[in-house]
């Protein structure tokens, strides 16, 4: 319809038909990409009394708490678990990745490339192939079922990707800086502390966001390493909430919004760094 109105015998018209088509496709795509978000938010805000499957596309009658109060009450302990897990795990794995990346880019020893390949493969493996021994190991060192146990998993299995990202970042730092520092008598670690770390703030933001998102969104380690529901991260709690028949589904939708909020906020406010991390790491586990 719109395209027809524009078919006037003038030159720029051809472009505008193309533009109209582009916009039609883009608007349809926007509707598709926003649809699940719309469903979650709209139904999360509905009260238990007027939430029904046949009206799930309607807006809520009034914007009050909806399912959010109950969802927050149920999920808050698990949100806390997730935070207690994700913050130390992100910091430790980023820091170790920075040290490794510095060594592998600036102080390459013979055979380092081959070892790095073996290291990197660790990021891609299906973790199912290590879960059973991992659980036994964590039981032996008494970290099974605990947040520190989860932190250990995320740090170790995060090392390959943080190392890769920092290695690529430091490869772009001129070698002259290292040479200048070593002329001044700085040691290998001294150069890392005094020269490289101050330079790597942008890389820490990118890697930190990448790790924060990956660890927060993890499900497999959480569900296998921590059997006690009270100690589980929020992704597992949300899945339990969703499978429970005693909970209204407006609460489930509100719970999904709550569980998504931390990574969503990081994405909304630091999206630029998120995209850079994607291009640098270009992998989702």
């Amino acid at each position, binding site marked *: 319809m719109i395209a027809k109105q524009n078919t006037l015998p003038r030159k720029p018209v051809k472009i505008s038909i193309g533009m109209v088509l*582009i916009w039609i*496709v*883009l608007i349809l*795509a*926007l509707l*598709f990409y*926003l649809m*699940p978000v719309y*469903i*979650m938010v709209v139904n999360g805000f509905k009260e238990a009394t007027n939430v029904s499957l*046949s009206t799930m596309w309607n807006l809520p009658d009034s914007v009050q708490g909806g399912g959010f109060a109950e969802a927050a009450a149920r999920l808050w302990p698990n949100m806390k678990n997730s935070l207690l897990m994700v913050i130390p795990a992100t910091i430790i794995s980023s820091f170790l990745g920075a040290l*490794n990346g510095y*060594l592998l880019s600036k*102080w*390459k*020893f*013979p055979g*380092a*490339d081959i*070892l790095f*390949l073996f290291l990197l*493969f*660790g990021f*891609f*493996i*299906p973790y*199912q*192939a*290590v*879960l*059973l*021994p991992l659980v036994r*190991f964590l039981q032996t060192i008494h970290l099974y079922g605990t947040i520190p146990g989860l932190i250990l998993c995320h740090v170790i*299995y995060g*090392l390959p990707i943080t190392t890769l990202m920092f290695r690529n970042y430091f490869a772009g730092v001129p070698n002259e800086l290292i040479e200048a520092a*070593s002329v001044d*008598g700085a*040691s290998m670690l001294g150069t890392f502390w005094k020269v490289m770390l101050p330079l790597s703030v942008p890389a820490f933001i990118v890697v930190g966001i990448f790790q924060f998102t990956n660890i*927060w*969104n993890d*499900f*497999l380690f959480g569900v*296998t390493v921590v059997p006690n529901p009270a100690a589980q991260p929020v*992704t597992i709690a949300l*899945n339990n909430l*969703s499978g429970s028949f005693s909970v209204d*589904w407006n609460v*489930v*939708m509100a*719970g*999904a919004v709550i*569980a998504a909020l931390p*990574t*969503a906020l990081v*994405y909304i406010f630091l*999206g630029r760094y998120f*995209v850079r991390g*994607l*291009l640098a790491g270009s992998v*989702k586990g």
Partner: protein
Amino acid sequence: MSTSELVKPLTEASQVSKTKPKRPLLSVHWQSFLLMLPTYIAIAIFVYGFISFTIWISLSNWRTLVRDMSLREPLLANYADLFAMPRWQADLRNTVVFTVFFMAMSFVLGLGLAILLDRKLFAGTVMRNIFLFPYALSFVVSGVAWRWIFNPEAGINVLFNILGINAALTALGVAPLQPGWATDPTVVLSLNHALAVIFPAVGKLQMQFGIPLAIVPVAIAAGWQLSGFVMAMYIGGMATISEEVREAARIDGATEWQVYRRVIIPMLAPVTISLTVLLLHTSLKIFDLVYTMTGTGPGFATDVPAIFVFEMMFKATRYNLASAAAIFMLIAVGCVIIPYLIGSFKESD
């Protein structure tokens, strides 16, 4: 390597560095290696040690809660059991079908959106951010949302009614659209009869080699989540192609469409290869999304290897069988990832 051997070059290095600007190579290499050693040890144990242990279990008699690490005779008996299971056969079929639908959708949407956004547009950046947004969410969150969207009594089916599609169909004398989505156990385009002609053994299988309809909604949800990533990678790739290249093609008389088909898309081949490897490996490992959205599905129509391993390992305690399935997953992922890692490494040298 004895400790004295390792320590000596270190002390030498610190003395030499005061007199000479360049240190002896050996000492620097040892220092660097020693600092990386904790990482290597951790990976050696947690990745390669644990994998070896899992391989051993996959060959063992350990099939109950009581640990039994003795090797089972014949050696690959657990693998033979695994591949004889109709459920596992269904899992392999589902993985193939899921991979095809999911990758087709991710590439069509991702590349399509990247091309559409590859021009000056009102709110172009905002749209790009919206398309990538699902990628920042947890698979569990999207699984929960899509589960309700594809609920046969809600979501899409209600939308068909609201938009008047079903009223129109009824008026035309056609049955209204009310698909069962992930609850539909139907397997279409079954190849069993055709295959049985060539391999008579196929005729005895309980599993239908075809397209299980229930896996399609799961592939749509996965495509929704990862196509933005494909788009972002292609946009990143397009940014490295200079405007002169496009200009040259236009001067040669190429239309806008031809510029993309003949010039830009072929130049993006390295991005396409990376994406193929990454998406394929994601699809071989897919777990959380399916587990929260549909679970194993009717007649294992949406079951996948990762769910099989999880249930056999932590619910059925069939440890040897679960380990065999996990090792099969590892081999499949390795076949995709290892050539890619080696290839990209050779390039960077």
